[in-house]
């Protein structure tokens, strides 16, 4: 598999990332590392209530404090119509997003932003925050998704009438949307089944947990032009949302991306930037805003918690005859949970005749959810892959074998519509089965679990510019924040096309005014879509290099070919010319037509779906309920690994986040709806001593729609771990765990028969 990479000079090589030195020396600038002369510090006043009407906001005392330069509330922003924008990961309603940045009329969760101040120091800004008087009428709240769906539940939005129900309800509810995906007839399928398993599951909201809190510095000039430096997953996303929320023209805002200290989907929205811009405009000064860790937990992210029921039937020979799922996802305070993708991913790994998936998007008094790595999919996979495991056990069929018998392959019609093009699920399962891990012996109190996952991956709009410098080096400009090594893959692909040394290519992440539009860094799209733009811009550049060589040689352009970084005569008939290097052509560019370079803007189609299969070994301490993960192997079809090191890193990181989701991470609320664990001490993400090495197996079934065969990589590895861990716990203890996280007290209760 990996040997295929031999046909390439740079693709598949573990090059040193071009931005590496700045990262290991601490010199690179992340969101909070910027500063401007005369800069003010902005801070946010947040709701202490889960649900309350805002009766009044008095800012007089805060404004009277010397050193306080501006205060803003929702009254400083236009009231936006309810309309969807498609500049982030999934559509976002601007009415909602505006109210999420600063609450209007009502606060909908503990930590909801209500007002913001700008002052000459951090200390004064804190004092000003304390002086803002907000009068609330506290309302009943609801945190749990099942409770929120009850007819007598407190209603968050009086104008929420469930979409997707015919006829449209006349009574408001907390159900924003109902979706369904139906293929065949599940009733018929269950009738043919020899064995049926039905189980209900719950998962808790989990935070993306990026180590860098949200941060920005903004500056509104007297000429009406505003500049934003911020940490986000998309400078163009920040620009679009800010313009909309503030009612400004897009051309008035220029956004420069800082280095980004993790996002995982959580930085595909704006929280601070529009507020900081309003403060800067009011004060006439640059404004810096940085969230505290508690604000990150209370006010940004997380992904949905859920309640779901999964029912699967199969014949004795392990053929699944029907799959049924009822998924209820918490959206947080505004509609927009990833229920759609959750429903679609649920049974996507399998070629099934009869599927019925019904989903509900439900608002609750929690922070508005943000995308988190394969949004929606890991939740559904936890349920489905747990039940598939149980079916396999009942039928006494090997867990990988049962999946092979039902695996989706090229041509399989999904339950959400499209047929799969070339996919590598079967190859991924085979690689997992071949791995020595699958047959390794287990000790006492140890168990092994297996689970799979699916994610679509996306393409979308991307732009790239390749400029050849006069010494034969090259600059590659794209517009996607580099969240985990994408500059390295851009440099590799450009070097491959140009035929020059990768160290002679300098990739940059440009600001919104310096490169064509790029949809944000998300959906595992950058190496695929922006990579495609880089390759196309590179090919155009090569064509121009051939034209210039033709001019130098005084032959026709089609008599020149490009090989390994040199222009050569297409045949001996063209003439006896010494090959011209890229550097030689670049040196003469002024005399052959001027600077050499090319830009490409495209909307990349044909993203290749990603499939993953994970094997987890763990040991359960039956005295305490503590789980120790002993060995972990993650197998994934990546299409083609442009930089295998960073591909492995994505797989390992996704697996680790999934293990955290499975065992430890959760939002804990008190009876007043206040978040009790907004910090890394009590919201426990995995640390180094919690994990073993995470072995990776890269399967390469190239995606024919990308010049080098790339599929997205970053998201699907978070899909299998929760079920892989749960299935391993079942294997070790006999306890089928149906609620996440499977933390020690919960598991201990199950072992002791109280679960």
């Amino acid at each position, binding site marked *: 598999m990996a040997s295929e990479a031999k046909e390439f000079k740079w693709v598949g090589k573990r090059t040193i990332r071009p931005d590496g030195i700045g990262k290991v020396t601490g010199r690179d600038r992340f969101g909070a590392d910027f500063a401007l002369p005369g800069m003010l510090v902005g801070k946010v006043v947040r709701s202490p209530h889960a649900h309350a009407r805002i009766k009044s906001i008095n800012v007089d005392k805060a404004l009277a404090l010397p050193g306080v330069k501006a205060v803003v509330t929702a009254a400083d922003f236009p009231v936006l119509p309810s309309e969807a924008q498609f500049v982030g990961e999934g559509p976002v309603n601007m009415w909602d997003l505006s109210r999420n940045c600063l609450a209007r009329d009502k606060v909908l969760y503990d930590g909801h932003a209500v007002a913001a101040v700008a002052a000459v120091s951090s200390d004064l800004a804190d004092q000003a925050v304390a002086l803002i008087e907000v009068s609330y009428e506290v309302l009943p709240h609801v945190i749990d998704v099942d409770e929120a769906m009850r007819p007598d539940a407190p209603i968050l939005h009086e104008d929420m009438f469930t979409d997707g129900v015919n006829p449209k309800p006349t009574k408001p509810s907390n159900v924003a949307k109902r979706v369904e995906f139906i293929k065949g007839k599940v009733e018929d399928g269950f009738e043919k089944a020899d064995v049926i398993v039905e189980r209900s599951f719950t998962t808790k909201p989990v935070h993306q947990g990026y*180590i860098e*809190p949200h941060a920005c510095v903004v500056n509104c000039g007297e000429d009406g032009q505003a500049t934003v430096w911020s940490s986000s997953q998309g400078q163009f996303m920040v620009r679009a949302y800010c313009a909309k929320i503030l009612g400004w023209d897009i051309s008035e805002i220029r956004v420069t991306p800082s280095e980004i200290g993790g996002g995982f989907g959580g930085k595909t929205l704006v929280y601070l930037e529009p507020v900081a811009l309003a403060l800067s405009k009011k004060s006439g000064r640059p404004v810096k805003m940085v969230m505290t860790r508690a604000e990150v937990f209370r006010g940004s992210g997380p992904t949905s918690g859920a309640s779901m029921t999964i029912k699967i039937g199969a014949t004795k020979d392990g053929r699944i005859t029907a799959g049924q799922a009822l998924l209820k996802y918490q959206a947080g305070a505004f509609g927009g949970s990833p229920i759609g993708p959750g429903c679609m991913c649920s049974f996507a790994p399998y070629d099934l005749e009869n599927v019925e998936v019904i989903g509900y998007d439900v608002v609750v008094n929690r922070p508005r959810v943000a995308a988190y790595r394969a949004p929606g999919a890991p939740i559904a996979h936890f349920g489905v892959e747990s039940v598939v495991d149980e079916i396999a056990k009942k039928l006494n069929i090997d867990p990988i074998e049962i999946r092979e018998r039902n695996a989706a392959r090229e041509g399989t019609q999904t339950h959400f519509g499209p047929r799969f093009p070339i996919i590598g699920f079967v190859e991924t399962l085979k690689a997992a089965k071949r791995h020595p891990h699958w047959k390794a012996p287990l000790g006492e109190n140890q168990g092994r679990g297996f689970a799979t996952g699916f994610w679509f991956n996306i393409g979308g709009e991307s732009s790239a510019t390749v400029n050849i410098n006069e010494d034969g080096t090259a600059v590659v400009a794209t517009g996607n924040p580099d969240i985990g090594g994408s500059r390295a893959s851009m440099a590799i692909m450009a070097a491959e096309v140009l035929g020059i040394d990768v160290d002679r290519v300098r990739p940059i992440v440009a600001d919104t005014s310096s490169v064509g539009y790029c949809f944000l860094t998300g959906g595992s799209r950058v190496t695929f879509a922006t990579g495609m733009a880089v390759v196309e811009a590179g090919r155009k550049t090569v064509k121009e290099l051939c034209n210039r060589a033709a001019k130098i040689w005084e032959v026709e352009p089609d008599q020149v070919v490009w090989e390994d970084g040199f222009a050569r005569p297409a045949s001996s008939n063209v003439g006896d010319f010494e090959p011209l290097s890229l550097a030689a052509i670049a040196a003469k560019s002024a005399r052959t037509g001027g600077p050499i370079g090319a830009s490409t803007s495209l909307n990349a189609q044909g993203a290749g779906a990603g499939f993953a299969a994970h094997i987890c070994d763990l040991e359960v301490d039956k005295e305490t309920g503590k789980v120790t993960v002993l060995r972990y192997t993650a197998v994934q079809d990546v299409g083609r690994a442009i930089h295998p090191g960073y591909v492995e890193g994505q797989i390992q*990181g996704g697996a680790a986040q999934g293990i955290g989701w499975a065992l430890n991470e959760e939002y804990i609320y008190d009876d007043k709806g206040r978040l009790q664990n907004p910090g890394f001490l009590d919201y426990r993400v995995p640390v180094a001593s919690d994990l073993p090495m995470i072995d990776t197996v890269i399967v390469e079934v190239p995606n024919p729609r990308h010049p080098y065969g790339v599929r997205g990589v970053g998201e699907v590895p978070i899909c299998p771990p929760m079920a892989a861990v749960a299935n391993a716990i079942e294997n070790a203890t006999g306890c089928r765990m149906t609620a996440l996280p499977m933390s020690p007290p919960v598991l201990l209760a199950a072992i002791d028969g109280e679960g």
Partner: protein
Amino acid sequence: MTKYHVNTSINGEPTEFLCEPQETLLDVLRDTLGLTGSKEGCASGDCGACSVIIDGRLVCSCLVLGVEAEGHEIGTIEGLAQGAHLHPLQQKFLEEAALQCGICTPGFLVAAKALLDANPNPTETETRYWLAGNLCRCTGYDKIIRAVMDVAAEMRGA
């Protein structure tokens, strides 16, 4: 508020600064001295992104007050490379792709250096427990642990 005059040494350079009594060493490093390589991930000592070495001891600079730096030797990420010459840990992190977004990287490098200063031959378990105070959300730690152990082996062989 009255500011305090503090004399200290940072990365071997005599350094003096004025700070308010409630300012943390991390605030001083980042906001007063412009040493932004130490990152603030939590301000509560839970993430290790602000790791520095004070008199040979690994600490979170968010848990130390600026005034407490008086008379002490402080080492930050900015002092790890010798001029243009990277520390072996920095070099190995690059070679082995032991970083993704890079926000936790300075803290890990400082903590790893403190580990190798204290224990040139750590086991994998010792390495994992020593670095358990540094959170990384991108890598799953695998490549970080391997890089640190590889450097330890190389430095022992040198």
